[in-house]
């Protein structure tokens, strides 16, 4: 398919940006300046200043001599990149393929996008009008190649559309600087009298390479479309993405509900056909005033059930503020998984972990409270009590080893052992009594000790000697002594309750 590209050029990117925020600057000449080595340079100048003869790259002192009324603002490094990135993200409503062209432009692959605006002319005027309304002066060009679009956007009055395969003719009258060359090459070409690209194209490429190097050849071939050029996108387009673009703005909750359902229906149709399901989804809403809002959901198990996915979004839809209205909904599925297709009729009635009701409930919990609140434990071959279990990441995980019953473990286990005071006969008996939170427990019955060593390859420290003890009330506890008895005051801890 014939590719079509659009180059956007922001003639006064930084100064327009600040003038939008500070309207008092619109009618006066001003520049951005930044110290470079030991002199201050002009990094950007607004329209009025440039008419007065101030151009970016000048020394600030020279600029002030030319225009004494010049207003000077401090510049920040990499500001244009940040600005362009934000603008590029906004441009995603026009095409998903947007790339930055530092320092002052954007490159868009608009193949197959323009018909939504009627024609290429409609598309480009819509973009230019939008930017002009905001306060940015932009120029745009559409051509078959990135190079041609770039060149024409810099040397056009307002906008320019090059018909397919006409880029050579369109480029002929432009100066060689339009080929995106470095300053030295441009100067050389200028000195040699190459006043337009046509005159360069007449020279055999071999000669040009010898004199100017490979870069010029590459740029010429790219502009003519004989060498493919690729864009470095600001965002990789998601393979699972649905867009809902409407001329009518969505303002009500009902409208948003319908839009989300529409998008889910579309994407689920595709997923069903492929046998895949959603594990995570992101809904982005683009507001007409430029604000973008995102909603994220995750599922515990791949699903392509529209009703269920909608329910997950529904929990959060209140967070979307439609403001003046939403003009674009984008649904992305960053994570998919294979769906197990089951004969549900057979399984129904029998309780099973694959029960969809359970999975849906867990999704709801994960959506409202968070995935980190859900635990399901599987045994782990470790004696150390805290490590004898592991949280299973997937709800469908099956235990690899059986649960042990030969060693008694308490129903309650404190996250952190609680220190207790004991009086104990030495060396290897359970304490006679212990004190915990000011309460004295006389030990009537006891079992133990069960020594549990630390796994030295995991952590360092004392081993534990565990005792099961029962006090005068019949309460059963799990207590341990940390380490051997050879210390002056051995440390005892309460670690849990038995049933």
């Amino acid at each position, binding site marked *: 398919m014939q590719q079509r590209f659009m180059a956007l050029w922001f003639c006064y990117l930084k100064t327009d940006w600040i003038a939008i925020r500070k309207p008092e600057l619109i009618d006066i000449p001003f520049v951005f300046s930044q110290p470079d080595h030991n002199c201050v340079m002009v990094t950007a100048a607004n329209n009025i200043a440039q008419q007065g003869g101030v151009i970016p790259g000048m020394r600030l002192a020279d600029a002030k001599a030319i225009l004494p009324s010049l207003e000077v603002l401090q510049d920040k490094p990499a500001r244009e990149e940040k600005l362009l990135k934000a603008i590029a993200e906004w441009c995603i409503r026009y095409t998903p393929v947007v790339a930055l062209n530092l320092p002052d432009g954007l490159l868009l692959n608009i193949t197959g996008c323009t018909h939504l605006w009627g024609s290429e002319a409609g598309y480009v005027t819509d973009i230019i009008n939008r930017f002009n309304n905001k306060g940015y002066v932009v120029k745009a060009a559409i051509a078959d190649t990135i190079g041609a679009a770039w060149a024409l956007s810099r040397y056009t009055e307002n906008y320019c559309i090059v018909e397919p395969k006409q880029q050579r003719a369109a480029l002929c009258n432009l100066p060689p600087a339009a080929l995106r060359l470095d300053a030295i090459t441009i100067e050389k070409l200028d000195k040699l009298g190459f006043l337009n690209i046509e005159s360069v194209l007449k020279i055999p490429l071999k000669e040009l390479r010898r004199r100017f190097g490979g870069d010029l050849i590459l740029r010429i071939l790219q502009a003519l479309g004989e060498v493919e050029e690729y864009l470095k996108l600001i965002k990789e387009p998601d393979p699972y993405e649905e867009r809902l673009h409407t001329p009518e703005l969505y303002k009500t909750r009902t409208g948003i509900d319908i839009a989300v359902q529409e998008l889910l229906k579309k994407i689920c149709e595709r997923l069903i056909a492929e046998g895949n399901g959603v594990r995570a989804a992101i809904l982005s809403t683009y507001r007409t005033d430029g604000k973008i809002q995102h909603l994220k959901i995750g599922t515990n198990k791949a699903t392509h059930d529209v009703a269920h996915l909608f329910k997950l979004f529904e929990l959060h839809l209140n967070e979307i503020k439609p403001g003046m209205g939403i003009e674009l909904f984008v649904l992305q599925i960053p994570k998919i998984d294979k769906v197990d297709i089951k004969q549900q009729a057979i399984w129904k009635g029998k*309780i099973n972990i694959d029960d969809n009701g359970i999975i849906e409930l867990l999704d709801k919990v994960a959506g409202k409270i968070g995935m980190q*609140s859900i635990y399901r*434990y599987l045994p782990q071959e470790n004696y150390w009590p805290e490590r004898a279990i592991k949280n299973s990441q997937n709800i469908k995980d099956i235990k690899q080893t059986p649960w042990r019953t030969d060693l008694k473990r308490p*129903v309650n286990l404190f*996250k952190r052992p609680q220190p207790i005071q004991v009086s104990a006969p030495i060396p290897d008996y359970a304490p006679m009594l212990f004190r915990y939170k000011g309460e004295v427990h006389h030990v009537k019955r006891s079992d133990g000790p069960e020594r549990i060593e630390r796994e030295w390859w995991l952590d360092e420290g004392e081993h534990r000697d565990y005792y099961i003890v029962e006090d005068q009330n019949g309460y*059963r506890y799990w207590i341990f002594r940390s380490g051997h008895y050879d210390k002056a005051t051995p440390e005892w801890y309460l670690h849990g309750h038995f049933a």
Partner: protein
Amino acid sequence: MAQINKNVIEQLKKDILLKQGYKPASADTLKINGLQQVEANFPNGVFPTGMIHEFISNRDEHASACRGFISGLLNSLTGNKGMCIWVSMQRTIYAPALKEFGIEPDQLIFIDVAKEKDLLWVTEEALKCEGFAAVITEIKELSFSQSLRLQLAVEQSKVTGLVLRTDDTKINPTATVARWQITPLPSHLQGGLPGVGFPRWKVELLKVRNGQPGAWEFEWHGGKFLPVYETEGSNINTSVKKAG
């Protein structure tokens, strides 16, 4: 005539019970392993499933006993294959210990929440979900309207809800079907052997809707509840029954 009246009244009582959701005893009625004496105090002599049970405790030790007892109930409720969900705020329960009570700890899903509001929300949603064999919630207090909501949630799904209340200072009326209290008792080993024996509890039914309150002593022994007098001859009698 008196006989006929009695029959009519019996029949009416049965009808009312049926309308309140109590099923008459039948072949597929759920039996709790070893808990026949307690079941006899419920209407129709059946442990009511698909309803909300409430357990109260005031100390950590009592709550632990309660968790053990609940695990014993789950053993029968899940029939060894169903999933259960355990919702709590500051969870201390240690999953591997539950294996002793006959349930696979991986049959349980634990939800830890930070807010009481979320706790009730998760519980209600879980109770509406037919896939669960039982839903266990640990909560400080349960107001009447909250308990009513939970009871309404299970009416469709027929899931059994077990609510463990960890603060018994405010005991208010609730819409639960039964109020239990489990306290740990000193264990015994046969022949006066030293060491800690099987878990032993005093099981009290403080309130039973349409049934009889009562108190018993049980031990968890050999994978089921065992009335204490059976384990030790007759030195502990069942006369600890009292009106709640």
